């Protein structure tokens, strides 16, 4: 067997749908019918999951540490808000795609700044871009509404058929479907040769370049894609809540997103989704204990996760599921996530 066919067969094997994945989505759909009174928070989770998926594409797969991913979220949110407010594109789905494209253009333009330099410079540049956009949004308050945010957004029915209702049912299913479609796309991307080359860049850019991977072009491409995803997440935020305010750009949003991804685990697509669920639950829990000081507990979770070690925590969490899978499918079965997954 040649090296090439070995790589491709490996890629195809890992791209196959597993039972656990089907179960995950079935569970997500089941939640939609089980917890009918909690659509709003579930929409929140779905949105956050999509946003985390976007960060995972650049952080988990390409190894770019970004402190300003909220920039694209914010641009998507404001684009969707402005499109709806001024009646430019009334149909939510088209507006959603348009907002994503605006964010993607911004991502493409800023990617040239981000691919230069080392980790630290990237941190600073991404953080700087997000802060810059926040300052701009505040400055041009006649367009963005300044600190008050965009007021009076009215969403038209989706595809002209499904109107947004006050319980958030339409919003939730809409978000879930968008998430699922984008997830399929992301899944296709990361299991493609393109995705494999991204991983090689993450592991060692120098060697990746040596075997003929165009490092910078790949990074630009994935950064643009991630910006598109983040823009969609932002647009979903505006469309389902009918508001867009300055805090869509805030540093806390980017920092929380890192936490979401770290809880779920970087470098596999479900990390962001699982992280979003756990994060929201933690947030609810902390907010119910200490409404004003939940930030402390979130910070503590971060510190503990880092001190214990991210890889180790995931090994512990996945010990039981992996054990179950092995019992049913034999010792060499594919486990939910490789135990040696180091990110």
């Amino acid at each position, binding site marked *: 067997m040649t090296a090439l066919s070995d790589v491709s067969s490996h890629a195809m094997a890992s791209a196959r749908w597993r039972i656990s994945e089907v179960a995950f989505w079935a569970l997500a759909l089941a939640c939609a019918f089980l917890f009918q009174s909690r659509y709003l928070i579930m929409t929140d989770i779905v949105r956050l999951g999509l946003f985390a998926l976007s960060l995972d594409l650049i952080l988990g797969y390409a190894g770019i540490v970004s402190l300003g991913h909220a920039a694209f979220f914010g641009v998507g949110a404001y684009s969707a808000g402005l499109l709806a407010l001024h009646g430019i594109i009334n149909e939510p789905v088209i507006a959603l795609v348009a907002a994503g494209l605006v964010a993607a253009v911004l991502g493409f333009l800023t990617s040239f700044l981000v691919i230069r*330099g080392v980790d630290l410079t990237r941190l600073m540049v991404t953080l700087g871009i997000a802060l810059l956009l926040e*300052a701009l949004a505040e400055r041009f308050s006649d367009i963005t509404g300044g600190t008050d945010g965009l007021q009076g957004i009215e969403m038209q029915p989706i595809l002209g058929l499904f109107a947004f209702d006050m319980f958030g049912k339409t919003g939730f299913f809409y978000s879930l479907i968008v998430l699922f479609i984008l997830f399929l796309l992301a899944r296709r991307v990361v299991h493609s040769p393109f995705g494999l080359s991204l991983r090689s860049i993450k592991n060692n850019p120098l060697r990746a370049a040596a075997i003929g991977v165009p490092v910078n072009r790949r990074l630009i491409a994935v950064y643009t894609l991630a910006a598109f995803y983040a823009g969609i997440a932002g647009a979903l935020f505006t469309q389902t809540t009918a508001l867009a305010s300055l805090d869509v750009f805030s540093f806390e949003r980017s920092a929380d997103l890192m936490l979401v991804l770290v809880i779920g685990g970087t470098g596999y697509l479900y990390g962001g989704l699982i992280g979003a669920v756990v994060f929201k639950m933690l947030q609810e829990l902390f907010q119910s204990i200490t409404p004003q000081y939940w*930030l402390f507990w979130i*910070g503590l979770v971060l510190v503990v*996760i880092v001190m214990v070690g991210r890889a180790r925590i995931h090994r512990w969490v996945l010990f039981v599921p992996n054990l179950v899978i092995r019992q049913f499918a034999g010792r060499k079965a594919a486990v939910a996530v490789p135990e040696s997954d180091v990110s």
Partner: protein
Amino acid sequence: MASILTNLFDGVAYGMLLFVLACGLAVTLGLMNFVNLAHGAFAMAGGYICAVLVNQSGWPFFAALPLAFVGSALIGIALERTLYRHLYSRSHLDQVLFSIGLVFMSVAAVDYIMGSSRVFIKLPAALEGQIDLFGVGIGRYRLMIVVICGLLTLALQLILAKTRFGSRLRAAVDDPRAAIGLGINVPQVFAFTFAFGCGLAGLGGALSAEILGLDPYFPLKFMIYFLIVVTVGGSSSITGPFLASLLLGIADVAGKYYVPKLGPFVIYTVMIVILLWRPNGLFGRTAAR
């Protein structure tokens, strides 16, 4: 003309303050290659220690300043020994997450203990008002800041360049392995430097309560400023961050005074441009580590 000079002086004072606040970060981030976003938390600790001593215990302002330094340094060394030490060799992502976690905890903890409103430190009467120097109005408080920070900068430069500890630190930074081989206790040097940097931040925090404002969100609000100082200034010497903070201070004060509508826009743009033009900072060394 006079107002330009007054603004220039304000900018210099502001810049020097930023330098004292950020030079500890220049060491941890620039020299030890540790991304410590929680640096502002130590500054905040110093500010609040000073505020409590002056406002509640009735200490004189100048006696509380050294204690702000000592208190922050002690917190710094305690955290360094227990937590930071384990993270020096971790990835930048881990360091970022860890220090963001610390920032969140410090923000919420201070909010809980001290309340969320802005805190003012009672100043002695001698520091209030302006003095008139050749027709240029100069705030007394700012003059004191310039004097204190100027002296500190000189002292730091002398310590780094002339003393035995300074040469140890430079050796440990240039090549930790070779330094260990020469019998230098590198972890100890780093711990001491870290604590000293935290102490300076605490002192800076105490001094800055009057100018920058002191509230629980201080570490988040000024994080970007500290990072700008270090990344723009580079880390090869103490002069780089010093010049960078002067530049930042003057630009910020001038920007707020002359083009108030643009807000912080100017500074962020300048930072991004400089980072693209010289990824290792204006005065940085060329080798990226």
